[in-house]
């Protein structure tokens, strides 16, 4: 099935099996940031932005992407906004094994787009779909807090 969608700012027109999941598609085109963790929408390691909202790519079938806009961490990592989140994660020691980190970063960006200065509770809700198997939640929350203190207009236009 020919599917037209936008991936990381680029228009894609490709003959894809509509029942392939987005997380699998990303892997097959060497976008390795989104991890296949649980495969059932529990862990958030495969988080991407779908039309600007946080989404779990293991639950999205390619056929449903017609006309949609997908942002993976590969598309986000070269932006200034990413650099700010990265800096905060490094400063707060918010990374241990790193498995959950791409998903955490994408969930953080999705949260900051809606709530540029999130409260502790808003962070808890915004990142509620992302598990850290090293249980580094305190440091991760601190990193998001720090990103929320930055004076920046978080935007999808880059």
């Amino acid at each position: 099935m020919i599917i037209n969608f936008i991936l990381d700012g680029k228009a894609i027109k490709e003959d894809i099996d509509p029942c392939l999941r987005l997380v699998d598609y990303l892997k097959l085109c060497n976008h390795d940031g989104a991890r296949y963790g649980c495969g059932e929408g529990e862990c958030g390691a495969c988080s991407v932005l779908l039309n600007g909202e946080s989404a779990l790519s293991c639950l999205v079938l390619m056929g449903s992407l017609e006309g949609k806009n997908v942002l993976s961490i590969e598309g986000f990592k070269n932006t200034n906004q990413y650099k700010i989140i990265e800096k905060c994660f490094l400063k707060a020691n918010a990374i241990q094994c790193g498995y959950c980190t791409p998903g955490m970063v994408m969930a953080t960006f999705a949260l900051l787009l809606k709530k540029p200065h999130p409260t502790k509770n808003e962070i808890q809700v915004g990142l509620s779909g992302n598990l850290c198997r090293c249980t580094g939640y305190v440091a991760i929350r601190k990193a998001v807090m720090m990103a929320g203190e930055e004076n920046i207009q978080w935007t999808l236009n880059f």
Partner: protein
Amino acid sequence: MDAKFLNPKTLEEALILLNNEECIPLAGGTDLVVKNRKESPLHPLDFPHPLIFVGNIKELHSITVSDGLYHIGACITHNEIIDSPLIDEDFKKPFKDIASFPLRNQGSIGGNIANASPVGDSLPLLYVLDAQIVLVSLKKKRIVPISEFIIGPGKTIREKDELITEILVPPAPYSYWRKVSQKGTNSIGKVSLFATRSFKDKKLNCFKLAAGGLGAKVKRDISYENHLLGLTVEEFKEEKEMIISHYLSIFSAIDDPRASKEYKLQVITNLLNDFLKEE
């Protein structure tokens, strides 16, 4: 269009496709995609019938209020309900307890109903409020109460050519909601209770209560609710133990992988106590 994945843009187009062949409606995919996943990633999933993706049908994406009822489109996501200024705060409580933030961006109210899980988080609320499910096919439209729509775990009376288009449901002011699960909202619920009561002129004029997770279906006893109406505030307080023992006598629970029946009955006793003690 690929034969195994149909992508209609309008309701009419969808109904024509459903009239032609049996399809599985796909909305957010939060249950359907998980159920049909394979052991090994990187391969397309297989489904027993073609999928019909309803997420692009504009008619299914609105929330309006008329005649005192919310008209909630089947594809409205849990987060859209939570963010809607039209919907009252108590109504939103169960939706805030559904899974995690990104999953609430994807899952829909229509999907939660059609999935007919015994632990569907929105179901006790919809039972208490006597929600009406609007089913439309090319030939007819019918409106069915949720208690008749769901007939068992994963089973509904939706016919193959029908689509849930919207849910008609009144607001839920002054309502009680608790979901008990392993780890907050993220885990599948073990037991849940949605209930509401109110007094007018010091007499009970509304009492409705539904429990989820105990058995195959959400449980509610409407004739008992009606029997309680008219009690004074004092009588109601005195009846508390009787009310709890009545519900325990009709609530049979079954063991499931998440909890034993003994555990469930203890939890529901605690929740009933909690609800009845609230001023």
